[in-house]
């Protein structure tokens, strides 16, 4: 069974066509990067997969079921939204935020147990935030809040991890650690990862597949294939300049010249 199967998906929001003719098939355990400009529909696509937005037409299946059904079960998805709207002075500590990621697994009418606290602390420490566990969440810096929120998305050990621009507020070194962490996690718990990012360069080194999205898919396949001037121009518009800071740089130079 595929983790995600999308066929002929179209999404209209407020009478605007946001996604058109999307087709995607993703195996379980794979890590796919969805890249593209802001406003191109990345967030919308992620939210359709999550079951938060209904398709206007087309079919979406997550592990063979409709996304809303999977959403209701509560223990399949881990989600990091792009912008987290949190009320200031909300009485919650970092460890409580991460604990929320376990609620789906705990279920209704049940209380968190020791094991849930162990898992919450485990993922907090994996994200390097263990020392801040009792600090009020609102007092953290943007990058720290992001890391705590990632720990929250992971704490439930979901089957599918949906990350919307997870690198916001995290420096380059932090990003590399994060990708290593994700790859380590994949070996441990066979997690399927869908990550949306406008940072095409960094992502290409770590993902199995890349899909270039701007209203429709302009490319889907091997990451290196996306570093192609034609595709990038179609995706981002004219005058695209690719700047990369990885060891794929040489290839990139050759691609740009040739």
């Amino acid at each position, binding site marked *: 069974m595929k983790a995600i199967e999308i066929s002929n998906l179209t999404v209209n929001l407020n009478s605007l066509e946001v996604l058109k003719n999307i087709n995607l098939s993703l195996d379980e355990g794979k890590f796919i990067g969805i890249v593209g400009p802001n406003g191109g529909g990345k967030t919308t696509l992620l939210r359709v997969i999550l079951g938060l937005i209904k398709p206007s037409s087309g079919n979406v299946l997550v592990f063979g079921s409709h996304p809303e059904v999977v959403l209701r079960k*509560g223990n399949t998805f881990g989600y990091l*939204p792009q912008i987290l709207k949190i009320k200031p002075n909300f009485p919650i500590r970092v460890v409580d935020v991460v604990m*929320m990621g376990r609620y789906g697994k705990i279920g209704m009418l049940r209380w968190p147990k020791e094991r849930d606290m162990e898992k919450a602390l485990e993922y907090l420490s994996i994200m390097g935030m263990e020392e801040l566990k009792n600090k009020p969440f609102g007092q953290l810096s943007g990058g720290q809040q992001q890391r705590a929120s990632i720990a929250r998305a992971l704490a439930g050990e979901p089957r599918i991890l949906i990350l919307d621009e997870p690198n916001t507020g995290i420096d380059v070194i932090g990003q590399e650690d994060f990708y290593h962490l994700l790859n380590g996690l994949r070996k441990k718990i066979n997690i399927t990862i869908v990550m949306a990012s406008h940072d095409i360069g960094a992502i290409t080194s770590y993902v199995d597949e890349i899909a270039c999205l701007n209203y429709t898919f302009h490319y889907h396949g091997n990451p290196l294939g996306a570093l192609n001037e034609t595709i990038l121009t179609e995706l981002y518009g004219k005058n695209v300049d690719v700047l990369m800071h990885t060891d794929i740089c040489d290839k990139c130079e050759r691609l740009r010249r040739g």
Partner: protein
Amino acid sequence: MQKAFLVGIIVSLISGIISVFVVLRRMSFIGAGISHAAFGGVAIGFFTGINPTITAIFFSIAIALGIEFVSRKGKVSEDASIGIFFASSMALGIVLISLSRNYNIDLFGYLFGNILAISDREVFLSFILAVFVIGGIVLFLKEIFITAYNEEIAQVSGISVRAINILFLILLSVSIVISIKIVGIILISALLVIPGATAQLFAKNLHIMIATSCVVAVLSTVLGLLISYELDIAPGGSIVLTATAVFLVSLLFKKRG
């Protein structure tokens, strides 16, 4: 006298707990709206001869759900729907009262509180309703909490945000109605806001916020009642002014520290 304190403590405990979530979910205006809608419910009770507390509960719940329904559909903003519903409920109440020609002390008691006229049956009823409210909050504590934190994250955890919102509105409506006898319809909204707002100044996590809010509510009620006996002033007003004083002192404390 004893009954007043007993019901006062029950009511203030409930207010303390509910107030935390009214403040966190930014529902102070809805709370005020439902309180005024309760007036319409009470009037229906007078008009039909049914126990006003019962009619108030059902009518308040209906108004609360009406507000939720209308604002969810999106055509009218939430604060506008609250304004419309609460004003019309009050108007309905005024019309019904004038029709029944029953301008008796009872009405005054419902508007401003009448702790001296609390019957044993009412004490018992308050207790049962309080158990219902506390039970609802305790059973669904983490769901209500995560929905207040962020609705999308709550949805992804498998929670039906709409069901939780409706549950909370029902618990809120019941809490409001049981508070009517102590502080009266006009002032209930103060008890829904002040304890939670005071607690939020200091609380670092949910359990501390709930405990602090309950302490503030019970303290204000007990002190307020004592002061009202000593100085022979309206108990409802006395309780709310005491709560306000507690809030202001806490605010000063917070600014200094």
